[in-house]
């Protein structure tokens, strides 16, 4: 695997350099971001720019500036740049023009997402010009990233990416909402949902997809999906594996077989500015050793089998990118929309009169291993949200997929959750797996 990666990286270095620059929209919107936590206005590589004294403004605290040290990145749960995030985990990353140690920018409020793959940064917070990846023949590479609720459009660029003390050289990553790629192909926009091309609509300055796979597509070298070749216009294209947007961890020189998310327990009613760690590598350093945790291999869709209330839910997952615990139990009261916001989506969340202790839940991996007798609590979503905290361990809602139980970030509170990358070995198994 390592040699394959080295080859891909080498190919990428040879292929990625392009004369077409990605403007990133310049610094004109930095001011709007600064009120929400020093949104990447800094061009220095010394770290985040947020003021730690501005408590509600978010931003990684000064202690985590520059994204930590060694293989440990500081993470925080706060309101994010939209001032509205709940149960959303953020870190800082530093991106540099490939090969440069001076043309760098540190950007905070990058969401840490174990349910996606690859680094994506919103153009308005990027003051750096990163080279767009070009396909053989000279066309620029762009991507229509599809999330469940919408899509994000923008070029694939190449960057040296530093997180804590780790570096991925010439990493293909996406710039979302780039001013040079403003014409969204209809095959992208016709998939519908929200166009998530601004910090406000995205709810973060970017996203760091560190899930258990290496690439955001996987077989886009043979299937034209997500990726576009752009000249005067853009058309769907296949793309070599080494140009596809990749989980940055898999391209680190060391500590590249996965991540461990470590978060403290959070008070039942919620808390603000919860800090934790994102540790790179599993069994590669003294601080990321496996122990006696349960190792659950995920399926080809990164899913697990959860059994709850007599339901067998094969499309279930554990995911730092989900902001609640999403499952279906018709016996639990749902919230009602407040009079001043009749279309509020709060109606899809649970509002029991008293906090419920639910379970048992069992989670089964593809390796047959079971995590049994798990329990969780569901509080009144409206009551909790009225407190304006950032982290809510008991926030839960209905799941639009009736075959799924989605254990979101709340699952990670008070735990040490490891996510091992496909085909990579640790002392306790081979990825893709989730262990806790």
């Amino acid at each position, binding site marked *: 695997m390592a040699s394959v990666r080295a080859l891909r990286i080498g190919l990428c270095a040879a292929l990625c350099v392009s004369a077409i620059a990605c403007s990133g929209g310049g610094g004109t919107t930095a001011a709007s971001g600064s009120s929400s936590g020093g949104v990447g206005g800094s061009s220095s590589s010394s770290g985040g720019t947020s003021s730690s004294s501005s408590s509600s403004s978010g931003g990684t605290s000064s202690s985590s500036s520059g994204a930590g040290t060694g293989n440990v990145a500081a993470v925080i749960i706060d309101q994010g740049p939209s001032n509205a995030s709940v149960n959303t985990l953020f870190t800082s990353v530093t991106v540099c023009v490939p090969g440069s140690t001076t043309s760098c920018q540190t950007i905070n409020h990058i969401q840490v997402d174990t349910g996606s793959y690859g680094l994506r940064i919103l153009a308005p917070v990027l003051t750096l010009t990163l080279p767009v990846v070009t396909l053989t023949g000279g066309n620029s590479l762009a991507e229509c*990233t599809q999330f469940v609720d919408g899509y994000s459009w923008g070029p694939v660029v190449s960057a040296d990416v530093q997180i804590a003390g780790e570096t991925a050289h010439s990493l293909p990553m996406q710039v979302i909402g780039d001013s040079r790629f403003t014409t969204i192909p209809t095959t992208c926009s016709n*998939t519908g949902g929200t166009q998530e091309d601004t910090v406000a609509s995205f709810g973060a300055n970017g996203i760091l997809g560190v899930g258990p796979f290496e690439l955001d597509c996987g077989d886009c070298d043979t299937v034209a999906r997500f990726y576009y070749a752009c000249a005067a216009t853009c058309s769907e294209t296949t793309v070599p594996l080494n140009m596809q947007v990749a989980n940055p961890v898999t391209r680190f020189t060391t500590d590249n077989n996965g991540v461990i998310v470590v978060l403290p327990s959070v008070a039942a009613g919620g808390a603000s500015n919860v800090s934790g760690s994102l540790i790179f590598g599993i069994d590669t350093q003294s601080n990321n050793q496996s122990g006696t945790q349960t190792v659950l291999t995920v399926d080809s869709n990164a899913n697990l089998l959860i059994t709850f209330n007599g339901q067998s839910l094969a499309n279930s997952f554990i995911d730092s990118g989900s902001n609640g615990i999403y499952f279906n139990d018709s016996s639990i009261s749902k919230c009602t929309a407040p009079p001043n916001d009749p279309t509020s989506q709060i109606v899809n969340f649970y509002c029991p009169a008293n906090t419920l202790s639910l379970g048992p839940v069992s989670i089964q991996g593809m390796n047959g291993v079971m995590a049994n007798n798990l329990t969780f609590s569901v509080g009144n979503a409206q009551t909790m949200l009225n407190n304006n905290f950032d982290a809510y361990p008991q926030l839960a*809602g209905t799941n639009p997929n009736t075959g799924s139980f989605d254990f979101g970030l709340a699952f990670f509170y008070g735990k040490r959750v490891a996510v091992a990358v496909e085909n990579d070995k640790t002392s306790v198994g081979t990825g893709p797996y989730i262990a806790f």
Partner: protein
Amino acid sequence: MPLFQLNAFKRAALGALFLAALAPRIASATLGEPEVTVQTDVARAHASIKSSQDRASYRVHEIQLPSGTVMREFVAPNGNVFAVAWQGPTRPDLRQALGQYFDAYALAPRSKLADRRHVQIQQGDLVVQAGGHMRALSGRAYLLSAIPSGVNVGDLH
């Protein structure tokens, strides 16, 4: 005529009748509109029909899209598409699949609690529900007023 040949003839004739009956009814991809021939829609998407099945109170067409996503279209006894569902790495062309209802879906206000993992929209008669995560998206859209009696919405996937 030997029995075998008669049976073969009957089978061929019945098969032809069946195909003739089926062909004009294969789904259009558009919610709320009549089931019309697949040729235009499927050809436009470079897709293929995997199967067409009659269930108790509706007919379902399963369409394999080149992206790897499987789309299912549910047709009520009155001949109209009342639901579409998808599962795979991408969403299908929902502008095509939702037709006149697409804008209601696309322009629905984004929830303050949105997290890129869940969609639960009701805009008038249209309901859209979607879930999953990158590389594994699923969802369905249906018209509340058009669901045939006896159909469990949970089965529309």
